[in-house]
């Protein structure tokens, strides 16, 4: 969603258009609510054009929907088991006949992200600044 906002802002603020990459004719969103033993996760897929078929995948579940109209919403709900103090990334996917789109949502305890290697700024003689990682 954030990337759409950025591209849309560029379209509004400039006469020169931004050229986005090819994407699937569907937008996807994940939301979660805590339940006993884990989370109930909902994948919401909104078609941006009419599509002859739409397949949603979430946490091991897979549901095929028939023809879906533009702006029509399809949802898939799954329960994800999460041990106390643990966390997991949940991937939701919407597939049309030729393309797909994915979303990732972390549920449970925050993931201990590996620390990014520190970057030191080195300045080349011509002034270019390099973020050096070793």
């Amino acid at each position, binding site marked *: 969603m*954030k*990337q*759409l906002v*950025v*591209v849309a802002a*560029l*379209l509004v603020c*400039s006469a*020169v*258009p*931004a*050229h*986005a*990459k*090819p*994407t*699937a*004719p*569907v937008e996807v969103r994940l939301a979660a609510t805590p339940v006993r033993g884990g989370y109930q996760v909902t994948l919401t897929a909104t078609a*941006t*054009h*009419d599509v002859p078929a739409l397949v949603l*995948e979430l946490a091991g579940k897979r549901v095929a929907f028939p023809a879906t109209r533009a702006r029509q919403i399809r949802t898939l709900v799954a329960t994800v088991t999460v041990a106390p103090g643990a966390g997991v*990334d949940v*991937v*939701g*996917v*919407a*597939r049309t006949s*030729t*393309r*797909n*789109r*994915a*979303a*990732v949502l972390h549920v449970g305890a925050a993931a201990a992200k590996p620390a*990014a*290697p520190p*970057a*030191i*700024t*080195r*300045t*080349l*003689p011509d002034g*270019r*600044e*390099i*973020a*050096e*990682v*070793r």
Partner: protein
Amino acid sequence: MRRIVLAILLLGAACGDNAGPPADASVVGIPGTYEVSGVVRYEDRAPLVNGADAALADPVPQVARGVTVALVADNGGAVIAMGTTADDGSYTFTFDATGGDEVHILVSTTSMTAERPITVRRGDNRIHGFGGETFGAGVIVVEDVLVTIASGEAEAFNIFDNMVIGMDRVHAVYADPLPPALTVFWQTGSTDGTYYFEHAIHLLGESSDDDGFDDTVMLHELGHYVEDVEGRTDSPGGSHDGSPTDPRLAWSEGWSTYFGMAVRDQPIYMDTNAGGGFNQNLDSEVTKAVLNQSLSQKVSEDMVAQILWDLGDAPASDDDTVAGTHDADMRVQQQYLKTALLRNVGSGGADLVDFLDGWFVTDGLSHCADVKTIVLTTHTFPYDFAGPGGTCP
């Protein structure tokens, strides 16, 4: 005894991860002219077809062509010498120093040559860089550098290398000695979308969709740079998903996908994501227009890319009879679209109709029957074959 072992371990830890080979003892402390050479590589993960999805291959070292290499003093960080890797990834410096001085190689995703005006930057505008092991200045030192995936920098070097491939093709096709500077923004976690805008390409780096190894995606965006710089675009821009759309948008996006395939001479577009991604084969897939509708009908970018591929590919393993070349397809941008007064048919801006007009202007009418088979029969696009290049029989 345990204390001694612990002390040795601590001493080892204090040396850090960047300790390289020991200095040449025979020159330690002696001022002189020294030399270092080596090969710069990065860990690449090539996109692969995986059923209807796309996947990434296991990491394989690839040479880093045309990246900037600097020799940096560990003490103080001064840049002692600077150069560019050759197309085999090699570099050589001679430099003045005191033997044994601790130095290291810094490689960065920027070019020092006007022919490849490419820079890959982080979101904070700094250029991506990777530092090699520390070593001591010596008479002849060989210091290879491998930019690892674990460093978070390998993707930036892959992006740079794909831009080199594309920029070299721009020189070969368009004979443009000084194309405008191109900046690519990517870093792990970047979420501002994948798009081209005013000589800059932005690439996603988020967990759900990271385009740092998606070669065909970044080359698609380079295709927009090429139409912007060497040709013409009237695209309104915006989102596109293969559905029939504004012919100017379909043309611009289909052209850009085609360009990305043509520079690799592979007809398969692959975009990986957390859900498996997808691939498209421009050679084998067929997307159609509506034959009894007008030239200004909404069309699919996929159809545009497929027609361009069939006009340009030949002769091996070809499923059409046009013995064309991708270079000839690409030249239509510069030799026709950029300067021609376009026919007032189609969408009123550069689109597939205008490209086909230009193709016949530059190629002549000798392939009319074969092109009709591709355009009218296979893709059912109602092109009139009556452009400024003449009327096909």
